[in-house]
């Protein structure tokens, strides 16, 4: 019999959430390896109360699974981790928590690590933070990638009525405040013949958030008629949106890992990203380059737009990274780790 796990996570094909996308990709890859995942759906939106999170924990099908995997991010639990984990521990099963963000609320990190059998983080930077907070044993499993070739540039550009000779810098991801898109706009505006294609929406349907309106105003001011906001990009349109771009700028102010950035690498794009530690780790293996400041970003984007050799080098690096960290590989590492946790549990 294969491994059976419960996964506590946001879920649902219409739930716009990075953790949901991660869980869906991971459980699909685990399924290919014979693992059965019982999803325990954590509501993504709205105010949570102790009773709501306790109900979620209680609904884990404990009799059917060997282990509980919790996909954790601060906003999902709204400081109610104590209620959630207290109830979850009653099942008496090993709890493996994947911390998608660390270091923001130290007390939460400490609580979660103490109440989980083991903790998974995505990179060395996150592991360092946890160690600094006193947790000695974080296990690193990178965020998975799903290498997908883009459609040919000319074809993709025809789809969006973009001239074939245009120089396009792009971004695809949620348009949140901390994504630093104003830096990208500022940097691109200095490249006279560059166009900026921004794909992505926000987490719920409904009117445009204020920050997006401001971004559009800023883009209009700095680079009139040289930008385009596509809105939310469904998964099936990603190969054509990325296909239309020459390179990608990713300017997040804050990140412990980024599904959006990995998505760009998965589509084999040359990426210039902000110099945050998780991205520096990727730069070290040749998957992308980071910038020092806005002028440096302009210079690096400009080079990628004009230097095919450099662009090809980065595209190859992105592709290599995506293949090395494919979901299949990530799933196998999860299985090994889960089995190790179960062995340790039995040994006790």
């Amino acid at each position, binding site marked *: 019999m294969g491994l059976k796990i419960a996964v506590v996570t946001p*879920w649902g094909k219409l739930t716009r959430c990075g953790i949901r996308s991660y869980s869906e990709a991971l459980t699909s890859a685990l*399924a290919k390896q*014979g693992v059965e995942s*019982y999803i325990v759906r954590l*509501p*993504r939106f709205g105010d949570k109360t102790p009773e*709501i999170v306790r109900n979620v924990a*209680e609904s884990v099908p404990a009799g059917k699974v060997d282990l509980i995997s919790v996909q954790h991010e601060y906003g999902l639990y709204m400081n109610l981790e104590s209620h959630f984990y207290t109830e979850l521990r009653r099942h008496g099963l090993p709890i493996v928590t994947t911390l998608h963000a660390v270091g923001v609320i130290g007390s939460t990190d400490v609580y979660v690590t103490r109440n989980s059998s083991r903790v998974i983080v995505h990179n060395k930077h996150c592991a360092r933070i946890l160690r600094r907070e006193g947790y000695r044993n974080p296990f690193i499993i990178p965020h998975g990638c799903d290498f997908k070739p883009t459609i040919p540039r000319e074809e993709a550009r025809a789809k969006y009525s973009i001239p074939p000779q245009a120089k396009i810098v792009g971004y695809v991801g949620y348009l949140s405040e901390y994504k630093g898109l104003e830096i990208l706009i500022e940097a691109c505006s200095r490249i006279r013949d560059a166009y900026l294609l921004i794909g992505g929406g926000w987490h719920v*349907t*409904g009117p445009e958030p204020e920050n997006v309106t401001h971004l559009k105003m800023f883009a209009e001011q700095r680079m009139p008629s040289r930008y385009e906001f596509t809105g939310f990009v469904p998964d099936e349109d990603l190969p054509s949106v990325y296909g239309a771009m020459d390179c990608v700028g990713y300017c997040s102010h804050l990140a412990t890992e980024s599904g959006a950035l990995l998505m760009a690498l998965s589509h084999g794009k040359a990426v210039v990203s902000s110099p945050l530690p998780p991205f520096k780790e990727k730069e070290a293996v040749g998957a992308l380059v980071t910038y020092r400041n806005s002028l440096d970003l302009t210079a690096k984007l400009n080079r990628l737009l004009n230097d095919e050799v450099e662009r090809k080098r980065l595209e190859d690096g992105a592709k290599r990274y995506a293949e090395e960290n494919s979901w299949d590989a990530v799933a196998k590492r999860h299985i090994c780790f889960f089995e190790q946790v179960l062995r340790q549990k039995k040994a006790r």
Partner: protein
Amino acid sequence: MATRLAKKGHFVAHVPMGRVNRMSDIVDQGVLITRSGLNPWNDDVIRRRYVDSKADMLITLKEPWLFDPNGQTIRSAINNVPYGIIDHDPVSPAITSKLHTTFKIIAPSRFAERQLRNSGFQNVVYIPHGIDWNTYKILEGHKAECKKLWYMKDPEIFTGIIIARNQGRKMLPRQIRGYARFLELNPDIRKTNMIIWSDARGQTQADADEAAILGISSQGIDIMHELRLLGLDEPRDRITIPSIEVISQGVPDWSGPDYTNAFDMVKLYNAADFVMLCSGGECVGMPLIEGASCGTAGITTDATGGPEHVGPGLTVKWDDYINLGSSGARYFLASIDGMAEAITRIYNTDREKLGHRARSWAKRFDWETGVMSYWDKFLEDCETELRPRVTSEGVKAWA
């Protein structure tokens, strides 16, 4: 719906709106009926009830616009499944603004489904409203008795019925004018009657003020005054208006085959020759379906959800509309001549044959044979989304 779902093995807790149950929890026909909240829409208790019931979904059967944007129904991290009740076109932002974080939205008409999808909602599921087709039926051979029961002395009298709350959207004055025009154009038709099954006084301004908060909006009219203005107060047998007490207390769906004392809705529909619902807009228009099921064809405005619920009955073109505030949402004004013409066509047709066609058509709205299949599919899909088991064979529900 609740009792039928309970019979299928689902756990259903009903939290009655309007502060109806101030006593303890009770179980009726397999449904747990909990205490209501002090807030008329249970916005003060709904999260507690949801959690205590260990519910997978909260289904709210009330116009979404009335819920407080900061109340428990909208704000809580629960799987909220509101009914997308839309009586106007295009859908108002007062409704859509309450739906952005919903788990699913139930559209009780194709019209509502289209409106919501055009507004960017992908989580809309069409589930029609249901009727008990075996209860709402043609009382073969008893039409004259039904008319007599409902105070019409002459069994030959050509009878229409308007069943509508006396509020602005229902356009009662306009519908009455349509009937008046029919009388004017057909002076030879002397034996006619229109039953206006509504509160003759209308929703007052005070009611309307509260109703505006509740989202129903707009006040009604004094029907008697309107009839006097239109010259329809004499002779008295041309219009029938029930007493206010009857309207407020209501009558049962069916109270047995007693045609002398047992008043009920089925006999009321059977007493009529047509159902008129030329309102400003309807999401569904239940009287049209109930009437059709009783073999009484309907007449409705050719806008919003009416046409898809009138079946073999008739639609009346609208010749104007009114805007509801700044959102651009509209109520439609059915043509007065068009209403008169539609009533004339019903008068001149083989009504018995039309009635049987209407009844056959209405079967699709039968709870047991039609509507529950939509619920079964919906709940099965929800279960797969709420409790999915991901294996190499695909995704299936684990519960």
